[in-house]
């Protein structure tokens, strides 16, 4: 049952082949059987899942069900869930049970989805390997000595191993697309503001965006349909209608103009990985697409710019964790300053502290113009590169990552090397564009992701382009043998 798509499950549930309670039990059983090897879940909420599944079966029986009703799903542990712990992968929130649901959680619950639990992640979504979690590293189902990517590595590993049909993720610099690529699944970061950030614990507010992670583009489209939409409670939520993401999936790709940025195929890109990407591009040519070489000249500036903007916003957002109102508080504080400083020092891990300190420095008196202002100006230049490219092409394609998955511990001692693994994904967040990663031919048994970058609010076209490829290939249906 764990191979099936959302639509196949929806059909089976309607034909009475199995109930949502039976389906949910089978996934809970798989989590018990396999997650010891992966550590993809922080919390499994069995009781709540079975209660939702029972309610879903009643909706199905009453003929009042959506495509998502009764589908076993998992939320990244950054989305607040009323009654189930929301840790954000941090000791700081180890004891935190949110008093409300995130907008994304409510929207999917209204559609009848069954939440199996909360997935593991880099602490406060800061990382590219899911190794900075307070709850231990997540492992890649394709090779358990390797990382699943991050920060949404628990969601990616759970979907890839068939422990959930699909999962939610968040993407500030690549945190949906990079783990999707390293685990061989499909993931979409929507346009900034398309999915509500309300109840999603903030990392860098001008970059953060939630989105779906699943096996296929079709599953992603069905999920985005339920997740997207204006939310008055998020002050940067986009006030525009949601497109139909499902019907245009079948549209022809004849005449599609694909831009290949020369900067994405230069030094630093693994040769075998490049060959796999070009093989996918050839598939698109057979589907009627035209290839245009383009340039995004400011590509190399994206990582440096991001490591000012994201830490600056994180240092401001994470100031709220002070040990006073909720979260971790140190023992026997001598005075209020001691309470703040020790609670934060004990509650946050090393990577979070590094980023808070970089951000604090960049925003401190005398340095604002040299760092934050300069970064915001370069951000404009990076965004203009994309604007010009989309005058020529419909979609931009390239590798999601410069290499396939790497070994656990391989990059943890060198933050800068770790940061550079997001070289192709970060510019998209700075510009606020939508982008996907879909699996293409693996290299040495390790998954490879093709990144598709679209124009603002063009998610429907992106999903159509991804779906077209998945109609003529089966990389998205592959499962790691160990978990099959």
């Amino acid at each position, binding site marked *: 049952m764990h191979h099936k798509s959302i639509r196949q499950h929806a059909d089976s549930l309607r034909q009475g082949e199995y109930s949502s309670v039976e389906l949910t039990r089978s996934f809970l059983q798989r989590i018990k059987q396999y997650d010891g090897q992966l550590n993809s879940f922080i919390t499994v909420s069995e009781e709540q899942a079975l209660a939702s599944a029972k309610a879903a079966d009643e909706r199905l029986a009453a003929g009042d069900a959506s495509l998502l009703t009764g589908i076993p799903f998992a939320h990244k542990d950054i989305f607040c869930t009323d009654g189930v712990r929301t840790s954000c992968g941090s000791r700081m929130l180890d004891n935190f049970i949110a008093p409300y649901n995130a907008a994304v959680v409510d929207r999917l619950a209204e559609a009848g989805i069954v939440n199996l639990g909360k997935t593991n992640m880099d602490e406060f979504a800061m990382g590219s390997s899911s190794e900075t979690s307070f709850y231990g590293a997540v492992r890649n189902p394709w090779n358990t000595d390797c990382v699943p990517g991050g920060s949404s590595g628990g969601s990616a590993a759970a979907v890839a191993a068939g422990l959930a049909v699909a999962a939610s993720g968040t993407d500030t610099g690549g945190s949906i697309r990079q783990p999707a690529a390293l685990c061989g699944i499909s993931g979409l970061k929507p346009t900034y503001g398309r999915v509500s950030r309300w109840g999603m614990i903030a990392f860098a507010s001008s970059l953060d965006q939630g989105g779906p992670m699943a096996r296929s583009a079709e599953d992603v489209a069905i999920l985005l349909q339920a997740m997207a939409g204006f939310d008055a409670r998020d002050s940067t939520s986009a006030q525009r209608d949601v497109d139909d993401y499902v019907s245009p999936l079948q549209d022809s790709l004849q005449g599609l103009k694909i831009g290949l940025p020369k900067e994405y195929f230069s030094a630093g890109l693994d040769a075998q990985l490049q060959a796999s990407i070009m093989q996918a591009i050839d598939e698109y040519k057979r589907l009627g697409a035209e290839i245009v070489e383009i340039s995004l000249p*400011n590509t190399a500036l994206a990582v440096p710019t991001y*490591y000012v903007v994201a830490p600056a916003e994180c240092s401001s957002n994470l100031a709220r964790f002070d040990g*006073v109102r909720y979260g971790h508080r140190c023992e026997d504080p001598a005075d*209020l300053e001691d309470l703040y*400083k020790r609670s934060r020092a004990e509650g946050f891990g090393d990577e979070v502290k590094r980023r808070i300190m970089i951000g604090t420095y960049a925003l401190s008196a005398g340095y604002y113009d040299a760092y934050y202002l300069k970064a915001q100006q*370069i951000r404009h*230049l990076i*965004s203009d590169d994309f604007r010009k490219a989309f005058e020529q092409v419909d979609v931009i394609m390239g590798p999601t990552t410069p290499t396939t998955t790497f070994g656990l511990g391989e990059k943890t001692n060198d933050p800068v090397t770790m940061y550079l693994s997001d070289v192709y994904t970060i510019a998209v967040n700075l510009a606020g564009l939508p982008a996907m990663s879909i699996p293409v031919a693996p290299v040495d048994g390790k998954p490879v992701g093709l990144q598709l970058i679209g124009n603002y609010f063009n998610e429907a076209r992106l999903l159509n382009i991804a779906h077209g490829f998945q109609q003529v290939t089966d990389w998205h249906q592959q499962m790691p043998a160990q978990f099959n």
Partner: protein
Amino acid sequence: MSLKTSDVEKIAHLAQLSINDEEAEGLLGELSGILGLVAQMEQVDTTGVEPMAHPLHMNQRLRDDVVSETDQRDKLLALAPSSEAGLILVPQVIE
């Protein structure tokens, strides 16, 4: 702009993080490495370029100044590490 240990200690104070000497030394190397990466920005001439604060160049939307939340005092207080008589407790701040 190279950092010194005293800078690291000052930043940690501004960020309200307690660090010991050994941690300050480690952070000195790590933060310097990150600032080295960030320094690539200096090569770019950004004269006259508007800073971009919002990806879609939108203005902040304002809502009407009316009550929108229900009273959840007990639920929120239950999250506090220490509370009494409906108030959150912290170490004494007024002598």
